[in-house]
């Protein structure tokens, strides 16, 4: 029975928990002198990236190699997509070469579901449009669980700050955190928040100062900062970047007002000085490098679950 990881909603809360546990094992493998196991020997994983991304692609490819799988890389800029080959032909061509999993990133939402029609391989969504980026959400939850071990998710308050409207990372993080029972507050200017958050189960604030300074039951445990997408600047969603930084940037002063135990997270790549001050990015509360390291472990868990284990994770968790 073929499985996919295309969205957090499709995975479900039992799947989330099981993958987080599995990622713990993978993290141990990564700490060994020889960080490699033969679990996926003979399997082929294709990274099919139609959007630029070095970090995510490398993270997936490293994950596959650590499980002894073979890796094929398809990156759009240097490919036949430039010659006008359709998505369907690309996928069917790869499928004909014999592949077990496709890790796909595309600027159009829904592509991971679309291509499932043209290949029998397991599909992993590495980002589709503004819609979903489930492995990012999983590695974020794994990092939170690792860095705040004494907190359970239903006792946690996470503030997601920035351009939520255009962020697949935010959408998947909200889905995962809410499924695990955490409280989520979105913070940003109205132009950068979704028109409606009905059904999301989140609160909304336009006042970052109030959110970081809150204490007691409103205290924030994680300040998750989203990248200000500079390429959107001509859409005039904010008056100037300086004004964005002064109202919604995580400055040293604002970071200093967070509760002592609070984490600062960012999916990367960071625009230092815009959404996050360089001193904050490099401060001890920032777990950005841990997020990257955990990304490999989480992606190893995902690939092993899809291609190796044969386990029905939701049932295993019962």
């Amino acid at each position, binding site marked *: 029975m073929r499985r996919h990881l295309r969205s957090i909603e499709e995975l479900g809360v039992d799947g989330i928990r099981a993958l987080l546990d599995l990622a713990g094992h993978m993290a141990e*493998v990564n700490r060994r002198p020889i960080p490699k*196991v*033969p*679990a*996926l020997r003979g399997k082929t994983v294709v990274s099919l990236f139609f959007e630029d991304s070095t970090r995510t692609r490398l993270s997936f490819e490293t994950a596959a190699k650590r499980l002894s799988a073979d890796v094929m890389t398809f990156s759009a800029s240097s490919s036949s997509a430039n010659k006008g080959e359709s998505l369907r032909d690309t996928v069917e061509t790869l499928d004909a070469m014999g592949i077990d999993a496709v890790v796909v990133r595309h600027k159009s939402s829904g592509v991971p579901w679309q291509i499932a029609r043209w290949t029998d391989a397991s599909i992993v969504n590495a980002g589709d449009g503004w819609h979903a980026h489930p492995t990012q959400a999983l590695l974020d939850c794994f990092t939170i669980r690792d860095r705040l071990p004494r907190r359970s998710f239903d006792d946690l308050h996470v503030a997601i700050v920035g351009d939520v409207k255009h962020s697949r990372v935010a959408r998947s993080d909200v889905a995962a955190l809410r499924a695990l029972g955490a409280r989520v507050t979105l913070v940003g200017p109205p132009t950068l928040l979704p028109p409606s958050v009905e059904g999301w189960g989140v609160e909304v604030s336009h006042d970052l100062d109030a959110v970081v300074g809150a204490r007691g039951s409103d205290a924030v445990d994680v300040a998750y900062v989203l990248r200000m997408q500079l390429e959107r600047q001509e859409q005039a969603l904010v008056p100037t970047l300086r004004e964005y930084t002064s109202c919604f940037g995580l400055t040293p002063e604002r970071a200093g007002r967070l509760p002592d135990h609070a984490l600062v997270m960012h999916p990367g790549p960071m625009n230092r000085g815009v959404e996050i001050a360089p001193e904050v990015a490099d401060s001890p509360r920032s777990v950005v490098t841990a997020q990257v390291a955990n990304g490999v472990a989480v992606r190893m868990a995902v690939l092993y679950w899809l*291609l190796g284990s044969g*386990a*029905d994770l939701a049932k295993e968790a019962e």
Partner: protein
Amino acid sequence: MSDAVERAASPTGAATEVLSAADVRRAITRIGHEIVERNRGLDEVVLVGIQTGGVWLAERLGAAIAGFEDGATVPVGTLDVSFYRDDIGLRPVVPSAPTALPALDGRVVVLVDDVLYTGRTIRAALDALNDHGRPRAVQLAVLVDRGHRELPIRPDFVGKNLPTSREETVTVDPDGVVIERRGGGR
């Protein structure tokens, strides 16, 4: 010194206790003595329990050895072999607890497991050990050897040899060893 145990044929589904808790305790003590005797002491000896069945056994062995060797502590580690198994994809293989090993280079590793059957788990354990270091030697201690080897693997220390049929399941824990005939046969 291990002996075969005669069993009356058990009806379908019924469980027979072949080793009591006291038998298990004595076997552990004897195996502990054999390990020390064979290695002429405990210099550079490490016990490694294979997840999950060998973990409690390795700890008990370590405690038993400390009991008669003037409190000498043998390092005890645990090894999860899930990612090295040859049946990944054929059946659910989900790791239990993460591997935690002391340094292995140049040491004598005594692998510990509860039941030795086809030998495939031990093969996986040898491959796993190889990725963690280069032991001077690897020895194998099992509480029960139930036969039916499918690979050329043999134990160095055995609690009990229990000839079994493939229709039977063997369950081992500190309270004893139980053989159960699977209902309906296969």
